[in-house]
């Protein structure tokens, strides 16, 4: 039995390689000259064309503007969705009110309905409001996340009522209880939720692809996809765009992995 350790370690290292290897290759390919991306054997060491590819991306998709759009959209969506989720999650977890269960079930049942069902009416709504090709059109539909509300409800339920009541007895208003006790106590799980929402916003593709029309409004995934569709695709640039899309998220993950994993586990194991 003791001999299983090294073997298992080796197998897991293999799985690790399969998962991380492509990223290593991506990072290397993004620094090559375009014609070297498709060289045989593949280039597995850094090339000297990173700055050149960055410049190329700036010219072809307006990299700085596209990055700004992506950060703005993902950031505002995160703030909004976290606020909505914390407020609603708190209400569902700690208050009794008429219609609580009905609304909660309604909310959760939409998880089963494919987002694609909603695409066309939301598109028409945005058209009628004249919001197509605006930041609002991308941000607004992402503000209500049933998953986020569910996650917050699960987390806040395990908070002892005595804690809240103690504050109320001391004369704290409800907003103050929320701000001074509920939010600080649950900061890790709220951070986890924020990370998940940000990740979703940063990577979202289908809806921005539909809602955004002009290249200067594009987010990074949309710009990358349109770049790839061109017949004269510069693959070094497309790959660099993909790497730029992946790197901040990974950095964020490495810094905050504790929250990430605990958030994932909270969603997966409670109830």
């Amino acid at each position, binding site marked *: 039995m003791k001999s299983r350790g090294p073997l298992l370690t080796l197998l897991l290292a293999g799985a690790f390689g399969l998962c991380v290897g492509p990223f290593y290759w991506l990072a290397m390919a993004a620094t090559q000259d375009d014609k070297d991306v*498709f060289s045989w054997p593949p280039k597995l060491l850094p090339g000297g064309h990173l700055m050149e590819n960055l410049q190329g991306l700036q010219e072809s998709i307006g990299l700085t503007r596209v990055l700004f759009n992506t950060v703005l959209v993902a950031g505002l969506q995160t703030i909004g969705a976290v606020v909505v989720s914390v407020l609603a999650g708190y209400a569902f977890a700690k208050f009794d009110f008429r219609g609580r269960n009905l609304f909660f079930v309604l909310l959760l049942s939409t998880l*089963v309905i494919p987002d694609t069902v909603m695409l066309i009416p939301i598109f028409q709504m945005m058209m009628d409001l004249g919001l197509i090709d605006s930041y609002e059109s991308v941000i607004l539909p992402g503000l209500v996340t049933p998953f986020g509300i569910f996650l917050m409800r699960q987390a806040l339920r395990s908070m002892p009522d005595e804690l809240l009541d103690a504050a109320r007895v001391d004369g704290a208003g409800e907003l103050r209880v929320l701000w001074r006790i509920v939010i600080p106590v649950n900061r890790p799980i709220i951070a986890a939720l924020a990370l998940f929402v940000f990740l979703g916003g940063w990577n979202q593709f289908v809806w921005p692809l539909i809602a955004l029309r002009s290249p200067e409004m594009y987010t990074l995934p949309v710009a990358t996809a349109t770049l790839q569709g061109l017949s004269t695709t510069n693959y070094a640039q497309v790959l660099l765009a993909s790497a730029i899309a992946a790197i901040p998220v990974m950095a964020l993950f490495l810094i905050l992995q504790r929250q990430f994993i605990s958030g994932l586990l909270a969603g997966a194991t409670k109830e």
Partner: protein
Amino acid sequence: MSLAPPEPARTTGTVAATTNGGAGTPPGRRATPRPGRARPGRRRLLTRDSVPYLLIMPAVLGFAIFKAYPIAASFWISLTTGNGDARQFTGLANYRRLIDDPLFWTALKNTALILVVQVPLMLGLALLVALGLNSTKVWLRPLWRLGVFVPSLTGLVAAGVMFSVILNRDAGLLNWVLSFFGIDPVNWLGSPFWARVGVVLVITWHYTGYNAVMYLAGLQGIPKELYEAAMVDGAGPVRRFFSITLPQMRPILLLTVVLSTIGTLQLFDEPYVLTGGGPDNATLTVTMYLYNNGFKYFDFGYASALAYALALIVSVLGILQVRLMGERR
């Protein structure tokens, strides 16, 4: 749900019924302002009774506008044909068209094929990885756990673009690696069969680690005493796996099966970026076909009918899975 000063509050009994609809109100809940108990909180707008409604207001508004209304509107649109002012109510015409549409069936078949191959493959692999990560005999566990989770952070577009080059026939990384094993270059994205395999590979790469981490959580939640008792009774590792691990993991297995099924049925981004649905429609999925009808041909009625057909399939499969896996407890 108990509140701090419950006893005096409930002695004023009569008001509880009027403000809360009576039934279902748990004890200890303050019902309505009572004379003579003025506290600092009393003058505020946010009383204990109005607070929950104010708290859920943003969620309700957003839900009504971006979930409930679109779901209803989509159904209405699916019963109409034409665009803009020329839209006409045509009843079930779109659904009849759907049944006679060979491309819809192709898309459905492709989606089902990917589902049947990919979900068991991925979840099986994820379980193996989780079992490995759970073993205390393994060195550097946190590092491997980190690594396998990383792909699930990548956006679908970034992953799709990356793999469209990795899977390149003449110069791709994968064929290069395979050449060491004496395997001839595979035309990954160019032939109908291998294009499907390629899509399955990419999705599996993307989500296996995520599921593995979820399984790991499940494994760590199993009480150690169960294994100890089984070992005392002389159960071997295989027996322990089937008699303890799997049954204990059922809820989380169910969750991942349902989530993966829902996700795979809605598959869009990967084939869109990797193959555009080709070659010869081999990787056309239902959602991609929906997207093409809605946003390339602007046939909203037909696209909505497709959306509802898909929603129906997703719900039926989801309910079926919960029934099959959930009831045998």
